[in-house]
Each structure stands twice: as C-alpha cells, then as structure tokens.
C-alpha cells in the first residue's frame, strides 16, 4: 500500500462544557479551546504505526474547513503525517459532501486506506466513513479497536453492541476508529519545528468539482433538560429505604 489518508476535523475540545447560545443559533465557540477530534487523533496514530511497520509509504492528513483548521493539520504534521491538505469551505458542510471530498482525494492519491474517526464529537453524526464506503464502492470497517494489515487486505476488530466482531476487508478500504485502538503519541517540540516545513496545500472545494448538497437544516439549538440533584443518604439502611420508597427494590 502506498498511501493512507487520515481525516482530521477541528472541533471544540472534549474538556469544554459547551454552552448553547442564548439566541439558539448554535453553541458558544468564541474563545473556546479547539482541538483535533479525539477519534481522528487515534486514526492518525494508527496510520503512522502502519507506515512505521512498513505497510505504507505516506500518510496524508486532510481537513475540510476554514483556514483555522490549519492549526489542527500542523499538529497532525507534528505527530508525523508527511503532508497535509486543507479543503477550504466557508462554513460547515454536510457529511455526504465531506464523504465526496474523501472520495475525490482517495482517487487522486490512489489511497490504500482512508482512516477516519467513528464520530466527530461536535455533531455526533457518525456518518462520513459509511457514506464514503457507499460512494467509493469499497469496504467499510467501522468502530475499529484493532487493525492488522495483511498484504492486500486488513483484519479489523470492531467494537459492536454484542462484543468484538472481526472482519476481513480487501484494500482499498475505509476505516472508522474507536477510542481503544491505541493511545496517540505526544508531540515533541522539535517535531513542531519540523512540521512547519512540511507541505500543507490548500484546495478550494469547488476545485474538486463538488457542489455541497442540501444539508439537514439546523433550525434551533436548546439546552437539554437538566436533572436535579436529589437526596443524600448516610448509610446502607437509608439507601435501601430510599429505593423501597420509589418501589425500586
């Protein structure tokens, strides 16, 4: 396999407690810490390990977003990606169009693997990998917690509701990765310096011949109904009594 493409989405950091804007137009992002989607960092780590094992020659990091996403791509380059592509769009675009971008780049780069996160933790959609599989006509293995490359195929362990499922897919293929796949490496200062010299190309969406489709429109954001703090009990007898009270034991 020649190349692995990895998707890196810029999202609100997972430690931030997001707040819904008072006008319901979205969530507060001003002055909020932004990071690489945690699942995508794991996808990149796995791609780097596959390359280090000799099963691939190049890792290309891709983000679709505004110029601000350069920041996340630079971090990806510092982790070890060889080069990066930023496909520029004005705002958010729909998952199907994102999948079309990955399809166009997979064709252009002749990629052996496209590695994505199982979900982006902002929209929690969990769609892009499966959509790419459909429009690319290549296998998908989602929610991966184990990946072994065996020549022209990959053996993937998937975290499913019933346990751990193993599938074998022919390459090229698209994977979406789960949290237990690996622990991403830390970026060291010299790597950040080196990353500044690595190529980061910007490509406008229109240059790929993609017209974003009709999105699922977001009409209004609201805060979820909260739960109230309840009572505190002092001992096991009190706990059992409280449960009995509610008819739960």
């Amino acid at each position, binding site marked *: 396999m020649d190349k692995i493409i990895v998707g890196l989405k810029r999202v609100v950091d997972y430690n931030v407690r997001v707040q*819904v804007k008072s006008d319901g137009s979205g969530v507060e992002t001003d002055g909020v810490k932004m990071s690489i989607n945690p699942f995508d960092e794991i996808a990149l780590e796995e791609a780097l390990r596959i390359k280090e094992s000799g099963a691939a020659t190049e890792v290309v990091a891709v983000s679709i977003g505004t110029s601000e996403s350069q920041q996340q791509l630079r971090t990806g380059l510092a982790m070890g990606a060889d080069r990066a592509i930023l496909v520029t769009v004005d705002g958010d675009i729909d998952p199907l169009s994102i999948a079309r971008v990955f399809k166009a780049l997979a064709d252009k780069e002749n990629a052996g693997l496209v590695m994505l996160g199982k979900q982006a933790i902002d929209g929690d959609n969990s769609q892009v990998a499966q*959509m790419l*599989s459909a429009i690319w006509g290549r296998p998908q293995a989602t929610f991966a917690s184990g990946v072994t490359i065996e020549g022209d195929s990959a053996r993937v362990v998937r975290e499913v509701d019933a346990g751990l499922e193993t599938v074998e897919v022919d390459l090229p293929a698209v994977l979406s990765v789960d949290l237990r796949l690996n622990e991403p490496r830390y970026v060291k200062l010299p790597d950040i310096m080196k990353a500044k010299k690595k190529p980061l190309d910007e490509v406008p969406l229109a240059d790929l011949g993609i017209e974003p489709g009709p999105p699922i429109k977001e009409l*209004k954001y*609201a805060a979820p109904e909260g739960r109230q703090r309840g009572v505190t009990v002092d001992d096991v007898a009190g706990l*059992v009594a409280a449960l009995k009270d509610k008819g739960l034991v």
Partner: protein
Amino acid sequence: MTKVLIVAEHDGSALNPSTAKCVSCAAAIDGAEIDIVVLAAATADIAAQAAEIDSVSRVLTIERAENEKSITAVLAPQIAAIAGDYSHILGPSTTFGKDLMPHVAALLGVNQVSDIMTVENSHTFKRPVYAGNAIVTVEAPEGSTVVATVRVASWQAANGGNSAAIAAVDAPAELPTHTRYIGLESAASDRPDLQTAARVVAGGRALGSEEQFGLIYQLADALGAGVGASRAAVDAGFCPNELQVGQTGKIIAPDLYIAIGISGAIQHVTGIKDAGTIVAINKDEEAPIFEVADIGMVGDLFQILPELIAAVK
C-alpha cells in the same frame, strides 16, 4: 403519502427490541404507514416476531444466503433497491444501525438524520449533539427520502399483539465479496441485556481490578440487574467493552441506574440521562455524578457494597 420502512435488527433468529422502538418513532409521524424489512439467511422466525409489533402494516423479507451476517456493504444495496416506495427509512442507533444506515443514505444520495429523540413533524426532528449538551431541531429536505437512525433510549418499544402480513420481496442488487465476516467474541451471560434491562448496576475505575469488579456482578445478580461500566473500567480491562455506557458506548434508559465509583464525566452521563432513578456511590462528595443523582451516598464502595448486597438479597 408517508410510508416508513424500518430495517429490522436481529441476531439470525431473535428480533432485537430496538426494532419495536423504531416502530414507536415511526408511529409518531402523522399518518405513517409502517413496513419492516427483514434481511437474513432464514427470515421466517424473525419475520413472525416483527409481524406481532403494533402499528406495522407489512413485514417484507429478503432471504439470501449472503444475508447470514450483517455486512453493511451487502445489506445496503438491497435496502436501496426497495427504497423507492418509501418516504422514510429508519434503523436503530445501535452499532448495527449506525454502521448500516449512513451507507444506505449515501446510496440514495441524501444525508442522514442521526439519533432521533422526538418527532416534530414528518421532516422535523430533535436530536442530541455535543455529547447531549445541546439538543438541536433539524429539518430534512422536502422531496427526498428521509434516512434516519432512532435514538433507542428515547423510545419505548411498541406493544405486541399484531399480526401483520408477511411477504417475500425481490431486491435485485449486485453484492460485493470484498468484506468477510470472521467471528464474534462475546462474553455471554445470563444477565439482563444492558440496553433493555430495567435495572443496571455500573462500576468505574475505582473498582481497581477485574477481580474486585466482581462486586458489581454480585450486586447486579442480587437485584436481577444488567451490568454496565465506565470507559475507564473497560480500558483498564476490568470488564468487556460491550458493557461501556456513554457517548461512545451504550445510551440506556433503565428505571434504575446505580453508578459505583464512577466520577460522572459528561461523556458517561450522556449515556444515562434518560434513566428513571440514578443512584451514585462515590467517596468524593464533589464528584460530578452527584449533580445528576437522585440518591447519593458518599463513602468507600468496598465497605458499602458487601453491606448493600447482603441487604437486598
């Protein structure tokens, strides 16, 4: 005409309760006529179970040897082949539906509505984003098929007692061989299934070892409960991955959830927000889990659990 097709989830013989929850969601769409499609190598038993679900008009079966295991690249083209008759195609937001439905959507050239919590009208729905920290009202485009997953924890299973017609259908599609099922590793147990159990006992990092996590199983057995865990407990190898509750695990809504030695990170709490009663046992009175707990108890779980197990036995 609102015609809804629901893709049945099953294990080859038994229908998964998630299917009856999708039916409840579909029935919330005004004037919906609801069909279920069963794709399997042997469909008769599963179709018979699906036909019992209230509000269902017809159960369609697509029986092919290739459908023995649920491989999305194999199932999706067959669903797409019969999609033309429907305004909506729904599947559950279990790992089965999450894997399959976006692939179906892309074959039909549409985006997917993920995790429907409530139906506002035929094209408008509410769904959670940002790990449940915001709820967004979304509108699917008029004039194209609505493909969606149903957040199973938000819906009660539809009742039984129906006897819908069952019919085999043709779904001509070329099926790929590029994806092969190898096997499933599952820690089989007799305990109630985590996703449907009325009571769930869950343990976190504080349990400390696989051996000590046994206390969680003991309490669960004393209560007839299912068992859950935090991500930290699964990562540490105390219990298998299918027990994980939360944003990246299972989203559940039992009547009773007992969180033991779990701090209550947002990613965990998002999986239990719809539980009836939340009980938390934690030695740190500042632990965020207490902010959402109906009944809280501050103390050392290793002292509390043996006593509690004895008391409820």
